[in-house]
């Protein structure tokens, strides 16, 4: 069983985990993902690769608590184990020298664009990175991105740090200023990817997005991860997760992500109320976004 070397909180509901999976790490490339199970009764959850330490065989993932399994993940202690971790899955991100390449990370998407930024940089690109979050306290990985990007822009929706506004606002600014961006990769919440893709379509800049539909096996066996791209059905786990953002049907993706909403909420509620699970107070206070405003 893979050993968890480190698992620490890096934001209000955001954790960073390091897992020892040497062979997987040796083979992994930026843009791929893994599927793990915390324990034998657990779900198989897909997680993007957010860092690779090839010398030590360590995989980094950054995850946000959004439901039971991600909450359960926070309870694994450093030195402990998870049931399994399979990968690397999916097709690696396309890397080329476009002159100027831009990476956009929103929310939890800030993590997986980091190894892709490294790959873009190694290919000789000038790398412009735009990262954004709702507010300052949910931002992370700023130092890491600073070390790789030629230009780094940080945005917060509420203006509590960096540029006040969305990542797409900053991108529009750059495009309007005539910056010759050859390729864009955007990872983040579906609405963010959709806004970015709609924007760059007007400017005719090739734009990749990394899709996160529900998955089970991750090998093309079940078809649960199907997405529509340019009117065709694709299996995100084997044909993706990266797709041409100008062709993705984001509304279908959003709808399909909500398939188990009621069951997930019931499971989460039960889990949070279980006195036996050792949860950080911040996790135990978890609320779904639509419950916060009530």
């Amino acid at each position, binding site marked *: 069983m893979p050993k968890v070397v480190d698992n620490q909180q890096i934001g209000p509901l955001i954790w960073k985990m390091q897992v020892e999976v040497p*062979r*997987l790490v040796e*083979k992994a490339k930026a843009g791929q993902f893994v599927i793990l*199970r915390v324990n034998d*009764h*657990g*779900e*198989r959850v897909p997680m993007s690769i957010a860092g690779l330490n090839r010398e030590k065989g360590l995989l980094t993932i950054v995850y946000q608590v959004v439901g*039971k*399994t991600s909450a359960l993940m926070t309870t694994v202690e450093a030195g402990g184990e998870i*049931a*399994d*971790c*399979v*990968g*690397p*899955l999916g097709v690696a991100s396309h890397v080329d020298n476009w002159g100027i390449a831009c990476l956009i990370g929103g929310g939890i998407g800030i993590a997986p664009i980091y190894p892709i930024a490294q790959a873009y940089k190694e290919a000789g690109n000038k790398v412009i990175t735009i990262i954004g979050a709702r507010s300052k306290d949910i931002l992370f990985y700023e130092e890491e991105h600073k070390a790789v990007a030629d230009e780094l822009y940080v945005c917060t929706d509420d203006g509590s740090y960096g540029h006040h506004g969305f990542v797409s606002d900053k991108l529009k600014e750059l495009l309007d200023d005539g910056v010759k961006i050859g390729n864009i990769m955007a990872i983040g919440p579906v609405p963010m990817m959709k806004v970015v893709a709609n924007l760059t379509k007007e400017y005719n800049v090739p734009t990749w997005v990394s899709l996160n539909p529900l998955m*089970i*096996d*991750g*090998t*093309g*066996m*079940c*078809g*649960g991860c*199907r*997405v*529509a791209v340019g009117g065709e*059905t694709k299996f995100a786990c*084997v044909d993706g997760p990266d797709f041409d953002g100008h062709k993705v049907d984001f509304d*279908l993706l959003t*709808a*399909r992500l*909500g*398939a*188990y909403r009621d*069951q*997930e909420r019931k*499971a989460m509620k039960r889990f949070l109320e279980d006195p036996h699970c050792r949860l950080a107070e911040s996790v135990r206070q978890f609320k779904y976004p639509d419950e916060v405003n009530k």
Partner: protein
Amino acid sequence: MNNENKAVAKKKKKLEGPNKLPIKERMKIPRQVMPAQDPNVRKKNFEEVPFGLSEEMAFIEAERCLDCPTQPCVKGCPVEVDIPGFIKLILEKDYAAAARKIKETNALPAVCGRVCPQEEQCEIVCITGKGKSGKPVAIGYLERFVADYEREHNLVQLPKNAPPTGRKVAIVGSGPAGLTVAGDLIKLGHEVTIFEALHRPGGVLVYGIPEFRLPKSIVQAECDVLADMGVQFRNSTVIGKTDTIDELFEMGYDAIFIGTGAGLPNFMGIEGENLIGIYSANEYLTRSNLMRAFDEDEYDTPIIRGKNVAVLGGGNTAMDAVRTALRLGAENAYIVYRRSEKEMPARIEEIHHAEEEGVQFHLLTTPIKFIGDEQNRVKAMECVKMELGEPDASGRRRPVPIEGSNYIMEVDLVVVAIGNSSNPLIPQTTPGLECNRWGNIVADPETMQTSRKGVYAGGDIVTGGATVILAAGAGKKAARAIHKYLMEEVKK
């Protein structure tokens, strides 16, 4: 004991001991009826449907065998199990020896006894079945009986492995094909490692076929025996991703067997197919079986529990899905199939079980469009009636739509069970591995060797979706050829 059985027992006593019953008498014994859960009870649980034969019933059933010199049953079995041979051992009450007899040619009797389509293989040609009773010896029941007896009484003997040969074999995929190859090659003294993409070994036996037809503990027991014999299991390893075929050679494996099955679900390609509530059979069954979503208090993976469930297709997979739907609380569970009952590829026993449990059959019907609600959940299906026209390439009469017969069927869950194609992961990452135009790996029918030296393949990845015993049979052939290759062409 019922009266008929009693009379048989009495007569036999007179003749002192087994197999002394004259043929005429033996032909009069009725085929034993396997006791099973009541349909109204079982459609609400996931426990196995048939209970298995008692020792006494097994004995009586064994008496029905005429020990025919021509042994048509043996020829009917794809791997030529010595059927009269193992039945004789039942009459001697040496059940463990009977199980070992079967295992000489079929490594998975507890599985095959349950899921083989006996009615069209070993049993259809049985001489007893041609007699007055018209019912063949229940070979499958007996096979299951001895294998269960052996396992439940801890009589499984680990065969002694030959001295180590120093040769290493990698097996990709842990379905019946891969497990069979592993068992045969470990006995011959080779080092054997199975690489499996999922977190549990067994292939379709664990992710596809439901608990109520094949308890997962049985598959696990088979894998445990292999592990005890020294087979290494490397689960959660996707060949083509974690390692490639060529990398396995680099890692020191001398030969490789590919038994990755037919694991790429087909869809209908009609409007609305990506709505929520439309599953492939693979997804639906994997959620329920491998991930155990049916047990929602204990396991975390969710599953949609439909009230009106339509399963599209007429094979074993469709029957498994529709019966799963009933057990997950469906009020109406439909099989929607475009041909007639006669053409349904599912086993008769499974169709019969489904009927008993209340599955409703909409035959000569096909959906042409799925209709969703405002949340993108499927709420209905537009169907069209079909009639059978001229025979097609497969020899079955081709269904043609009847114009104007369209109607709407209300459904909140649809499971598409219209077959699988083969997964391209390995062919895409293995230069020089020849595939046919359906993406199946091309292998020599006798040796199972592929276009790559030292690489063998068998099971569904070669034939397309077939049966457990055919996959296991291919594994047998491959193991023989791999052994020969290792000893003759790999120098150590």
